[in-house]
């Protein structure tokens, strides 16, 4: 199931937008579809808090046994939190991609990139075409 309350990037990241402390913060992870496609994940590299990101910029990597995939930021802003425990419990990512599987939180500094993101229905159409 693709949660309806999230936005999605072409590169399979999901985004949850919320107000935190008077600013817009994007929580970012990767979709269930992406996790299935990557098969068993064995390693993940996440960035540090404070890193500045532009929409479309690489912020980390996930690895399966024989593939490496880059993670791309769907938004522009500064990283304010990182789920640093996630790389140690990759086996659980598949069963909980949208809550426990969050990777970074970004304080959005430029909202124009949000316009490029898809809603759940559009993203599901993309996945059907790829799958």
């Amino acid at each position, binding site marked *: 199931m693709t949660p309806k309350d999230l936005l999605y990037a072409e590169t399979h990241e999901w985004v949850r937008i919320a107000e935190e402390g008077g600013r817009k913060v994007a929580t970012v992870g990767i979709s269930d579809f992406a996790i299935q496609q990557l098969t068993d994940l*064995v*390693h993940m590299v996440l960035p540090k808090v404070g890193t500045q990101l532009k929409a479309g910029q690489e912020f980390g990597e996930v*690895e399966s*046994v024989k593939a490496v995939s880059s993670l791309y930021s769907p938004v522009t802003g500064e990283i304010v939190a990182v789920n640093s425990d996630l790389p140690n419990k*990759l086996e659980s990512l598949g069963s909980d991609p949208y809550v426990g599987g969050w990777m970074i939180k970004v304080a959005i500094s430029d909202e124009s990139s949000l316009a490029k993101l898809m809603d759940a229905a559009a993203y599901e159409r993309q996945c059907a075409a790829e799958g």
Partner: protein
Amino acid sequence: MRNLKSTTLLFELSQPGRRGASLPPCDVPAPEVSELIPAAARAGGPPPLPEVAEPEVIRHFTNLSTLNMSVDTHFYPLGSCTMKYNSKRNERMAALPGIADLHPLAPEETIQGLLALLYELQLMLGEIAGLPAVSLQPAAGAHGELTALMVAAAHFRHLGQARTKVLAPDSAHGTNPASAKMAGFDFVTVKSNASGFVDMDDLAAKLDDQIAVFMITNPSTLGLFDRQVSEIARIVHAKGGLIYLDGANMNAILGIARPGDFGADMMHYNPHKTFSGPHGGGGPGAGPICVTETLGAYLPTPVVEQRNGHYVLATNRPLSIGRVRSFFGNVGVLVRAYCYLRTHGPEGLKAVSENAVLNANYLMSRVKHILPVPHGERCMHEFVATAAPLKKNHGVTAMDLAKRLLDFGFHAPTVYFPLTVPEAMMIEPTETESKETMDAFAEALFRITEESPELLHDAPHSTLVSRPDEVQAARKPIMKWTAEVGPAS
């Protein structure tokens, strides 16, 4: 007879006080080591190596050897790796004391025979390549690629041209982009077209005056000769770029066509493949490179030169990129290549390629009705088949076929490479296999495709171990034995 006890690790066999080697007593008057080595540098005791008796060393490693497939024991059609017969005469020649027991910094006049051999090898490799300037220094094919790209970089620096890009097709070996990066270039991928060749429109779109080198594997990783190669060379040269030929597939064109004649400016050989040096369980190789006369000025030093009947290691090359490894090169591998070339001669080398191509086409003709070959009606020395229809119709993957072939006593082909063919199986029989062996391999494939998918998913069944859990190995890597890791379950 296989002895399963061999899988006990050396460290588990260790017993305090056991030992293999015995050494002579010290025959010189000298102080104790405690007086000779500064206390700050001296260890309290030797490192915690295992303690085993010599018979155990022999039995342990000998039994381990029986757990390997090898060219000496099995058909090994591992595409792109050219697993041909490794002639025993070459092993004997390379082990001659007058060859094997030479110190790399010995004075030149004490190694004239070896230098004569290496000089002649340079000439022969240059002739086969159609590129006269040769460096024997690189340690492996990938190292040869890197060295050649450094040569190109030095050439453009000398010309005062700031060229930043290396281009190669999407079917290229992973070493191409990795070498480009190490040589300081940006890497740009060029698409393949529907026939598996370089997409000329995409190449044209990506060609500009920033190009330093276009890297091409020809015959390609699909086992096809790209007829466009001279046109590619023409347009790359017109932009001031150079052509690098990845010589991985030279086994198809020895004495038939020469890279220098079809537009290459630089190339490497894999003598452990093409010239039958054994692969050693994953090395050693060697990666000699051949370049044009002009680029020869930039080759690493030393190169062997002949002066008045005397052989010298020439270092006086002001434009040389310098040294890319210690000492001269992988001489042990080079000597085997020399022996191979002298054994075959010009007609024999051409016959190598003719029979390699004949065998590959024969095997392709036998299996392509069950394993379609998407690109090309004929192949060169290898072909890339696809298990995609089997996967679609029966749920059987290239990996399943590969694993089941092991049960039939055949090493598997290369699978899932090149990346441009789904469920790829890259099959290279080489010229040193018989029709009977290839027939038996084809028959095994036929039988396998009639077996139940469940049986295949669990293959191999006859080997000591079944499919290893690679996810566990990568997620929590155990890369050495420790007492805590414990014995076999």
